[in-house]
């Protein structure tokens, strides 16, 4: 079975287990997803499944998008994402839900697009330590300091860590545990934080570290 789903981040909360231990949990509205295309080694050179998520009014999609979904009478879907899978036994039009994809207690990797931080300095962006706040320091507390050596090499090496745009990157958080599974409402509860803002698109995959 395919271990992958597309979802929407709802937010974070705390839940209690039977022992009364409180866990920090991110709630994700995951699926139902539809298989929109199956890629095979013979045809495309690799094996994967394309899933679609989030039903929308057909008017919201372009003709090409609708044509791609029309083959097996799949509803109009906003997002299409591909998941690599070798043996999945899925066909176009199949529905993938929370319970078919994952089980309780399973470890997963979660991908999202991180929140934008704008133009960020080196302390926030690269975890520099900054300078002294006292001992005569003025206006240099969060400055990056030196960029390199002197006459030799006479230039700044490429890849030097500087201030710049931060966030809006694709971020993967690995090895998170599924602690809640709600089939009725298509919800997944994942222990810990997940990249991205509330309402952001989230991809959930089988954990690589197993």
């Amino acid at each position: 079975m395919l271990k992958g789903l597309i979802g929407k981040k709802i937010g974070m909360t705390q839940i209690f287990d039977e022992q009364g231990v409180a866990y920090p949990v991110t709630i994700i509205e995951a699926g139902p997803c539809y298989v929109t295309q199956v890629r095979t080694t013979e045809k495309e050179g690799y094996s994967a499944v394309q899933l679609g998520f989030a039903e929308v009014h057909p008017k919201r999609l372009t003709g090409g998008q609708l044509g791609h979904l029309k083959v097996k009478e799949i509803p109009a879907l906003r997002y299409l994402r591909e998941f690599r899978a070798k043996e999945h036994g899925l066909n176009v039009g199949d529905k993938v839900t929370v319970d078919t994809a994952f089980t309780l207690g399973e470890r997963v990797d979660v991908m999202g697009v991180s929140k934008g931080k704008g133009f960020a300095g080196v302390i926030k962006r690269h975890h520099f330590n900054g300078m002294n706040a006292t001992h005569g320091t003025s206006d240099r507390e969060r400055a990056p300091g030196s960029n390199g050596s002197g006459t030799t090499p006479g230039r700044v090496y490429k890849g030097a860590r500087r201030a710049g745009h931060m966030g809006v990157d694709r971020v993967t958080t690995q090895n998170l545990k599924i602690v809640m599974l709600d089939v009725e409402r298509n919800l997944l509860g994942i222990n810990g934080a997940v990249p991205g803002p509330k309402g952001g698109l989230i991809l959930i995959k089988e954990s690589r570290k197993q």
Partner: protein
Amino acid sequence: MSNILKALEAKPNEKIPQLSSGDTVSVHVKIKEGDRERIQEFKGIVIRLRKGGNDSCFTVRRMASNGVGVERTFLLRSPRIDKVVVERHGKVRRAQLYFMRERTGKSARLKQKFD
């Protein structure tokens, strides 16, 4: 908070009565030691209440020996709390009683509120 998160909230612990800042309470907490379970009592003044669904909590401050203050925060909806007994209502004018941290001895008392 979104409606989905609201729907996921745990039921309020029925053994916890309505609390307010300044109350002298004794909190009975279930503690697990190996496979044995026992109940520990923590008695003090409620100095803070935080509301927010599953994250609701309250902080109890008590004076331990040698005038050392001990504060403990409990989750309001935690099933670990066996029961909470309100022993006395204190007369206070604010919601967060952080000023109690600077007080010891006689000045660390609160007037009783009768209702």
